[in-house]
């Protein structure tokens, strides 16, 4: 759905932020039975911050045909 494509660098960065916030911080959490414990989630944030600092990443964050905000 490229009609919702982000226009500026800021919006592209925010799109990346939105994606990462959802994938890394949201969704169903299963406790126990899994290899990653809830305490480890903080470690994800370390990586998340580094990832967000990378403007190149924001420029290249394009996955055609998946999320609507990705570039056509």
């Amino acid at each position, binding site marked *: 759905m490229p009609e919702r494509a982000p226009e500026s660098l800021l919006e592209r960065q925010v799109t990346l932020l939105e994606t990462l916030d959802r994938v890394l911080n949201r969704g169903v959490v299963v406790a126990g039975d899994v290899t990653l414990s809830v305490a480890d989630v903080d470690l994800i944030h370390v990586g998340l911050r580094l990832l967000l600092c990378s403007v190149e990443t924001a420029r290249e964050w394009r*996955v055609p045909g998946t999320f609507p905000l990705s570039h056509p």
Partner: protein
Amino acid sequence: MRAAREVPDVSGASPPAHGWYVYALVLPGDLVPPEGMDGKSPVTLLVCRGIGAAASVVPLAEFGSEPLRRNLQDVGWLEEKVRRHERVVAALLARGPVLPLRFGTVFLGIERVRAVLARNARTLREALRYLADKEEWGLKGFSHRASLRTAPLRGDPALLAQGAAETEALPGHRFFARRKAEELLAARSLEREVELADDAVAAVAPRVVRLVRNPAAAGFASEGGRLVLSLACLLERREVEPFLEEVERWNRDHRRDGFRLTASGPWPPYHFTPGLPVDA
């Protein structure tokens, strides 16, 4: 030669070399298997009591507790895997309702996946049914300080008064008068941003079933713009078009206000998944 390299050992023999990465929970049925986390193992549905766990085999050398901890701090690794995770969930969303799992959910065996499905079957089935006719959309509000100052604050009485005071001030006092005007302008800009954000929320609220307002990644800014509003909205599918029209209307009505809304979606319903009880 390691001939057996491509055949994952998922038999449960100890110590296990592979685990199951679960992307999302869905309704059982046909699945065109997307490519999994490792770029080769296909995603399959592990079904139990009317719930399908979309999962693929991953090596524990990469996704076990300790390696995963290390990998999460490796930006290149994280970026690639987040993309893969995202792509699988997007493919599942195109097929029907999904309950996305948080990134990095790896089970040590199929029986453990089934146990979680069995324990929570009712909650999960209800959640999938609830989400079947709904979509998650994101709504962001961007403030452009410079235009916000030149347009909507131009007629502000307090600022006009302060401007007049500055002009009339004795030369020695002018510097302080100007600084006071600057401070007032900054404060009014902030207030105005909050007013506009609240106004935007009120405008779209009637179209929305549930709404999550995120602290708007405070201070996130570039190119003179700043993110000041961040919403996740759950919409009935038939309300999506009216919602988008409302956003466009709001932008038209506020085009000189230095504040702009951007809608994105549909997203997998990451903000509207049920909480599962912690295992006993």
